[in-house]
Structures are given as C-alpha cells and as structure tokens.
C-alpha cells in the first residue's frame, strides 16, 4: 500500500450532487473510493472511471476524474479499450449487480481470463435499483419483487465463486457500511496488477433494504485463509456469503504485459510495408 497522500479525499468530489436516495449504500462506496484515491494520490486527469447503467452507474459523474458512462452492461469491455489503448491510465470500472452479472455477465470471465489491469467494483444491492426494484441475478431465492410477485424462482449467483472460477487476479467482498475496510479493499485492488474484482454490498434503501440484515450479518474471513489457494477460496465462497475480505489472489502477467511481449514478434506494420508485400515486382517480368 502506498503512503503518498497528495490530495484530500474531497478533492475527488465533483460539483454534481449524487441523485441517490437517502441511505443508499452507493454513498459509502463513493466515500471509500475518494479515500482510496486520496491515499494513492491518483491524478484525476490520469484516472478513468467507467460504468454502465443503473443507480450505481451514475457514479462517475460524482467523481472528479475522467469518466465514461456507457450503456447497460458494457463497463468491462469499455474499460478494456480504455486501458489497452492507453496503459498509463488508472482504470476503474463500477456498476450494479444487474449491470455486471445479468446483461453484462458475458464479459466478466473474459476480463478475468485476459487479466486486464483494471479494478472492478460492483455495488451489489441484490436488486435492480434504477428500474424500481425487480430481482437481479444476486437476489435471494423466494425474494418477492415487482417481477417476482410470488417469490424469486431463481437461485442467486455467487459472485465470489464466479470470480474465482474465472481466475480473476484479485477477488474480494466488502460492504458500503464498512468504510475503512472497503477503502482498503479498493486500494488493494488498484494496487494489484491485474483484474481486481470487489463485490461491495451496497444496500438499496428504496427497494431492497438489506441494511440491517447485512450490518448484523457480516463477518470477516479469518486470518488463516490463504488467498493464494484457489480451491480453498472457492470453498470459502460457498460458505456464508456475508463474509468479507480478500478471498483470492493470483498475480500473473497482465494483458498489457503480454501485448508488450508481442512487439518484437509482430510483422512490419506501416501501410507502406504492407503494400510492399502486395507489389507485383514488375521489373522481374
């Protein structure tokens, strides 16, 4: 963890007032992000926050940094483009559980497999906030909602297990109301070279108010847990989902590293060099 504190957390707060409901967990995630940015001394001009659509998708607007508010579900491939086109940028992707695991769920394993060096923070409220309370892939079985009036027939997706199965480089769970620890997780995620995934419990006070249940229920991974042990991490993920902490870590060359290594192998690449290859060499005829 770096100690270079060059900016006040408030320096990252934008002029735009968050539109979130009173008590929404996203406020806590935003605050933890400010603190993590501050501790890392991130330069707002060199930082990009990418999001999809949802209440949580409005996040970039509230941060002083570059931002990219994409369409629903496309935060991860967008972030890949940003990072791979300009590896000097610090890239954070954020979004909701629906954005990330329903419509955008197809992108997740590939971001992990590629090991794109970005940090992905999901504000998991186990509900669709912005569209007024339908169940999401992380909603509980039997949960009632406008779209599941007699109880959810689907079982929740285990995001920790999913990320470990995809071999994400850093896999952790935090909570919006555990400010200090969430700050540390975001910080560790950013510092991790590779694809870092943080599932942050972030209650939706309007449509799925789990604030109390989660506040009462969360506990931390015990000291003995070895995050380098993938099978053990998976086993822990199957335990009590309300367990917070770093489940899994697997550092390895990032996507940027790997493309860097291709430079020498690649073929001549100017347009002229290419056309040379198609020349008819008429002098020989």
């Amino acid at each position, binding site marked *: 963890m770096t100690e270079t504190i060059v900016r006040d957390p408030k320096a990252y707060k934008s002029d735009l007032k968050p539109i979130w409901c009173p008590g929404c967990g996203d406020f806590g995630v935003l605050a933890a992000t400010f603190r993590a940015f501050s501790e890392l001394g991130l330069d707002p*001009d*060199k930082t990009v926050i990418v999001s999809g659509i949802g209440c949580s998708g409005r996040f970039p607007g509230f941060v002083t940094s*570059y931002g990219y508010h*994409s369409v629903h579900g496309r935060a991860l*491939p967008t972030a890949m483009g940003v990072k791979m*086109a300009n590896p000097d940028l610090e890239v954070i992707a954020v979004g909701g559980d629906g954005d990330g695991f329903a419509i955008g769920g197809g992108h997740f394993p590939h971001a992990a497999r590629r090991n794109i060096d970005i940090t992905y923070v999901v504000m998991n409220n186990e509900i669709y906030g912005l569209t007024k309370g339908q169940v999401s892939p992380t909603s509980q079985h039997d949960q009632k909602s406008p779209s599941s009036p007699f109880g959810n027939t689907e079982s929740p997706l285990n995001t920790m297990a999913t990320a470990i199965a995809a071999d994400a480089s850093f896999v952790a769970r935090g909570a919006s109301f555990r400010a200090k620890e969430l700050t540390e997780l975001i910080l560790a995620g950013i510092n991790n070279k590779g694809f870092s995934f943080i599932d942050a419990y972030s209650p939706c006070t309007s449509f799925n108010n789990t604030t109390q249940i989660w506040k009462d229920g969360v506990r931390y991974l015990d000291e003995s847990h070895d995050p380098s042990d993938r099978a053990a991490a998976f086993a822990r993920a199957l335990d009590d989902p309300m367990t917070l902490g770093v489940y899994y870590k697997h550092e390895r060359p990032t996507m940027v590293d790997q493309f860097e290594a291709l430079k020498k192998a690649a073929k001549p690449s100017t*347009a002229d060099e*290419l056309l040379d290859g198609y020349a008819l060499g008429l002098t020989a005829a």
Partner: protein
Amino acid sequence: MALPDITLQLAGESGEGVISGGDIFTSGAGRAGYWALTFRTYPAEIKGGPCMFQVRIGANRIKSIGNHTDLLVCFNQEGFDLQHETVGPEGIIIADAESCKVTDEFADRSFEVPFSQIAEEAGGSRRGKNMVVVGTVCGLLDIDTTALEQLILARYAHKGDVGEANIASLRAGGDNARQNLPSVLNVDKPGPAERERILLSGNQAIVAGSLHAGLSYYAGYPITPASDILESLAARLPRHGGVAIQTEDEIAALASVLGAGYTGAKAMTATSGPGLSLMSELIGLAGTAEIPAVIVDSMRAGPSTGMPTKTEQSDLNQAVYGSHGEAPRVVIAPTTVDDCLTCAVEAFNAAETYQVPVILLSDQSLSHRLETVERPDLSEIEVEDRLTLADVASGNGASPNGDGNSAYPRYKLTESGISPMPIPGTPGSYVSTGIEHDEQGHPSYTGEIHQAMQDKRWKKLDALAAGSRVTVTGAEKAQVGILGWGSTEGAAIEAAELLAAEGVTAATFYPRVLCPLPVDRIKKWAEGMDVIVVPEVNYTGQFARMVRSDCEVPVVQLNQISGRPFTAKQIADFITENVKTAAGAAA
C-alpha cells in the same frame, strides 16, 4: 484476333487446389503485366464441396467480373455441370480427361487434358493437377511463366522440392497445351506499366488504409467475410505498441473500440451483418457521446445467418437506420479494391473530424476479390485528426475544468457542432455519456437541451454532405443515369460502355458517403438524366428507397440476389429491355 481481356474459370472440388491454383495464376499473370480481377465461390462445408475461382485478365484495368466465361477449366464433372452455363457463345472448355465429359453443345469448342496424369509424369504426384491446369492456361494464352515460377519457388521454399515438382507440372501443362491444343484464344499483351502495380484484396486494402490513417486499437470477433482483417492486424498492430484483440463477441468489440476512441486512439472493428446487428445499441452510444470509431461491415447474403459465403448489398438500411432513437453516423461504401484503401482513410478522417461512428460498407465480393490496382501514393492520401482540447487550449496554464471540481464542458454548443475533445491523461476531465446531457456532460432531460444537443450532433455532418467524394462518368445529359453504391460501380461503368456501343447515352454517379447523402448533387445530376436506374445486389432496393425519400427523385430499381456481383451485361440488358420502353418498370 486477340481479345482485350478474357475471363477464366477454374471449377472443381474443394481440396483439389482450385483456389490456390487460381490465386497463383492471378499473381503470375499480374507479374507478367496483366491486370486482373477475381471472384470466387466457397463451399458451405469446411472441406469438400464444389468451389469455383474466376479471374478476368487483360491489358487494361479490369472493372468487373466479366460477362461470361471465355475459358472454363473443369477439374471434374461437377465443375462442368455447375459452371457450363456461364460459358459465352464463343467460350472454350478444357475438361479433365479422366473425370469429366462435356455435353454435345460444347463438342466443337472443348478439349480434354489428362491433368493428373501429366502431373504424375512430370512432377511425380497427381497432386500437381492444379499446376498442370495453370500451365495449360498459360500455354493456351501464351502467358510468360518466368515470374510465376519465381513465385512458386518462393512460396514453397520451405517445403523441400514441392516447388520444383510444381514447376515441372506447370511446364508440362504448358508444353502439352502448346503442342496439343489449338491456339483458339488470345488476349492482348499488356504494355509497360506506367506506375507500380499491386495485387490485393479489398480487406487487405482496408487494413492498409487503416494503418495509414493511424490505427492503433483493433478489436473484433471472427466472422466471414471479415475475419482476415482481424488476422492481418493481429500480426501487425503490436509492432508499434498497438493491439488487436479477439473479443468474446461483437458487442464487446465495439464497446472496447469506443473505450479506446475515447482515450484518443484511432480504433476500429470489422464484422459482417450479424455482428453489425449486435452493435446497434453501441452505435447509438457513439453517436450520442460523440466518440470516433470505424466499423467495417463486409456484407454477406442475409437475412439472419443467410448465405455466409455469398455476396450481397443488404446491410445498408441497418447501417443508416440501425439503432433506436436517432443517432448520427456516417456510412461510406468503397467501389473498388484501391478505393477500399482510400475509403478506409476517409472513414477515419470522418470519424475524427466529426466525432462520430463511421460504418465502412464493403461486401464479400469486394472484400475477397483480388484486383490489380496502381499502387496508391500514400503521401497523397491526407490523414485528419480530431480537434482535441489540447489543440485549442490557450496554454495559459488555467485548468480547463474551471474552478473547483466542475467538469470540462466537453459538449460545448459550437457553431459547427464540433466541440474540442479532452484526452484522458491530459487536463479537461469530464464524463462521456449516452444519457442526454448538457454541455458539461451532466444528465439533463429538458426539451430545450435535448433539441440543442440533437441539433449539435446532426448539424456536424452538414459539411460532410456538401463535400463528400463522388465519382461520375458520362455526360451531364444522358438518356440513362446509373446511380449506385459500392462494388457495383465497375459493372455500371462497363454497362454504360456497352450501352454506348448500342447508341444509348448513359452516365454513372457513385457517391462514397451514403449517409449523409449528397442530396443536392444527386438532384442536380438527376436533372440531366431521362431516367435513373439503381442497381443493387439486394431484394428491396434499399438505396433506391433512400434516394426517393431524401432526394425526391424517381428511380427504377434493378435488383438481384444471386449471391454473385452484377455483370456489366446484366445491367445493360436490363436497361435496353426494360427501361427505354417504360420508365417506371422495374425488374
């Protein structure tokens, strides 16, 4: 009498070397100074199934695939069965003596050659069959094979003496032709080349153009007939720190291209119809968030999975109107292989200048045809870059974000609609967004802002509509005007020549930018035409409908969906048969 050009077809089974034989013949003919243009059909299967290679060569530039086959070489019976109908009234057939019998009507203009047997005798293997075919053709047409032999040696350099064996087969084929076949076919000898010529495909030209324009980020998902763009760039882009990424689908491809474009990179993806459909939503985002991007769509026959290896011009509607709401975009259609290079650069220029997504519409026949063109002088093809905030910043050190933590007004309402774009990594932070927004990019839902922003986004393209490139042939006044787009241009120009020979005056008009359409110029040109015909390789006449609605000019549709490009004769015949009599009749 020597013909100005001839059309050769090789027809056989996939796996017999039909395509590779055709390719090598085309390269050899090219090196011998002939101009060439090819067309090929692939089987639906990965291995096996009928395939056909067609090449038209001549002493001058070749513009279309040829009206009929002058020389058909049948590798087997199926080759004859499937292709003999394309043979012209004077056309010649050479059939494999072992496996193919021609029908009576061709009795007096067909010859048998025991290809495999000659190959075995000369090169020691029946697999040299296709080289014997190539040699036969060269012998018959009296094409010098020096360059061809060099090419074969180079191509098989790392394969032991396969090269030598192939050359032996090639020569044996030639010798046999000269000895045993009558010299019934002659093509004009080409003169010396004034400018250097190259032989390449439409997709290769697009790759070259994109590199010239400064491409540094490519992402794409494999799909016929666009995959080779990904493949070519994967081998090249990393050289100077660029990347070419095979994504999990087309949505991820375009999403990442927009992410890259947002950071200032020139970024591209290439796909075919199904992928373009999947990109619909993100094309709207690019238009709304004003992010430059180039999307190549190499069209194949639709709808749905359709006929993936066949050509069609049926994605124009999707390119121009696809995506909900009303998001501006530019659509550009190249007409020839060298035009693919130019249009690729123009696509990047438009994307950068107007901060919009640009769709480059090629098609299977253009993407995969080999065509001899004069080597473009790249220094003449201008490359434009976007207006960045750094370009306009006063340099007085003041933060572009103003005081405190307010966002830079990235969507400033300017006269032209174009606003300077801050590049991440430099000052001027803001949020790029597809939500309706004010100048600062903050979400805003008032009618006034929506109107102002739609005005801004759409008026950007006015300058392009007024200044886009158009090619015109023929006089300002003509009996027939052929108005088209994309790869039909060569056939249209040749059709006009055929019509001229019959005393009908005809002109052609091919705009490169189809959206925004150069409405005023089309209208003006149309005034000089008695009747306008719009040939399209599609079913509904998509371009014809656009012309009717945007230019309010009546046109006659000429449509075919055979999976093959138009021949010049098809267009000319349609006009002589249908158009002169009743201006309103359509095929």
